């Protein structure tokens, strides 16, 4: 079917492509272009005034100590979330691909936190961190839990990581399981006949053969945690004293509460660039380790 697009079959194009292409253009392409333009203007929401101001907004982004601090906070949060979630997911998946009884149920169980949206998840953990853990701390005298984790910047940071990783683990586990099922059984058998121990099987066979799954999992966890918004909103609301504002939270505040649309959009573009650079670098580096089975 290599007919040229002509008046006669323009109808086919409109009927089959019309609605989705129109919605896609109106929601993705046009806002993307307008968004880039916006970063070069000083558009004011109240007066409606707007003029081109060059790179001023971007300079503002890099001069804004608060945003840079929060970007650094976000980077640390992403790093620990990605590492913790992936390590746990990897080993749980490994334990759940041996064909034992009840594996289906266990997988189903570990996946359940993913049914819950960020808002509900955030409030669930907020209840635990602000009420249940301090109760344990008081009852058993555990100093770590005496005060709510959410009232101190350092512990609130870990609270955010725990809540996010708790959800991610089940999701990544599913992908790791799919990756492990792709490891040929005869390779594993040959290794065990040759007397390879469990650790060396994991290190020398399973890890190299599941690089594609690892790349995907790190990619997914990177982009999901970089863009966390609702868990942050429900769990800490950026507090105490704005010290736990992740980048997205900061951007929403900047744009919609302080009406600095141009700067907010410039921050969003910077954040996107950071995510893209890190995600691409990691897949490039990991892909180099990939081997053929």
């Amino acid at each position, binding site marked *: 079917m290599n007919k040229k697009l002509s008046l006669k079959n323009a109808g086919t194009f409109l009927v089959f492509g019309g609605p989705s292409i129109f*919605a896609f253009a109106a929601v993705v392409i046009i*806002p993307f272009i307008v968004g880039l333009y916006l970063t070069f203007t000083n558009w004011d929401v109240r007066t409606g005034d707007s003029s081109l101001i060059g790179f001023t907004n971007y300079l503002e982004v890099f001069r804004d100590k608060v945003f840079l601090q929060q970007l650094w906070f976000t980077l640390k949060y992403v790093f620990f979330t990605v590492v913790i979630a992936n390590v746990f997911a990897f080993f749980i998946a490994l*334990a759940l691909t041996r064909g034992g009884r009840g594996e289906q149920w266990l997988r189903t*169980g570990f996946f359940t936190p993913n049914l819950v949206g960020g808002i509900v998840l955030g409030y669930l953990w907020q209840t635990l961190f602000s009420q249940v853990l301090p109760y344990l701390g008081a009852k058993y005298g555990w100093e770590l839990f005496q005060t709510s984790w959410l009232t101190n910047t350092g512990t609130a940071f870990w609270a955010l990581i725990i809540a996010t990783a*708790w959800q991610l683990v089940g999701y990544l586990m*599913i*992908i790791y399981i799919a990756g492990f099922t792709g490891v040929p059984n005869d390779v594993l058998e040959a290794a065990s006949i040759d007397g390879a121990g469990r650790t060396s099987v994991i290190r020398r066979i399973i890890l190299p053969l599941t690089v594609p799954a690892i790349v995907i999992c790190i990619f997914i966890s990177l982009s999901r945690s970089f863009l966390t918004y*609702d868990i942050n909103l429900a769990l800490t609301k950026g507090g105490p004293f704005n010290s736990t504002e992740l980048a997205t939270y900061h951007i929403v505040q900047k744009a919609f509460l302080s009406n600095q649309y141009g700067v907010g*959009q410039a921050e969003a573009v910077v954040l996107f660039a950071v995510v893209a650079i890190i995600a691409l670098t990691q897949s490039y580096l990991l892909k180099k380790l990939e081997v053929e089975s």
Partner: protein
Amino acid sequence: MNANRRILPGLRTGFLYLLLFAFLTPFLLIIMNSFKTTQQFFESPLSLPTTINFKNYASAFDNMDFMQGFMNSLIITGISVTIIIIFSAMTGYLFVRYKWKVNSIFFFLMLASMALPFQVLMIPMVMLYGNMGLLNTKLTLLFMYLGFGVPFGVFTFHGFIKGIPYELEESAFIEGSTTLRTFFSIVLPLLKPVFVTLLVLDVLWIWNDYLLPSLVMLSPDQKTLPLSTYTFFSSYSVDYAPLMAGLIMTIIPVLIIYLFLQKQIIKGITEGALK
């Protein structure tokens, strides 16, 4: 050796169930305490409830306007998932079977856009649609979900339709069937496995989404369930017992779907991620 073989897997499974139990404790604690009074919860959050009463559920149901949020979420999720699936299937078919230049340009743009995070689009989007006075209606939100959902939908259908032999459709065309009719009576029924994948991923995404509706649906009667949960929590903040009941009620609808579709859901996630 033999005894080892029998005991070890049992131990391993036992350990895994224990781990799962610990993993799911947050849920268990919330469920347990949603049946107590707030006073009882403060005094002993770890004890089992002595009575099962649904007072907290009734109070949460009224105070968070559960029915309204639920209906809004149901309508928005139901309609947007349906239109995303139908329109992306049609567009995927168009892109596979007609090699026009426009088609490859749009297909490329859609693929590229999947790397774009929502955060880059939200500010200009709210600005543009706000200027046109289009915020605060379900129609706008549905349209936006269609626009955001189409790239992944088209991509997924594209990959699947490529594998369907063209001969099936050719014979229909020879007998004089129109493209539209051929698509709906021959191609669409073959796409069922992809439907399930997309259905699962899009339902989980749209049902639980907070950021987009929070920017678009500003008036109280337009709130989706995550928005009602947010309002309820931020205005009720000390009375924990009804709050926990509210959380459980928000989770239940998805949990029911999950219990029926768990195999497909897990398959959907795997396929969605590996594509």
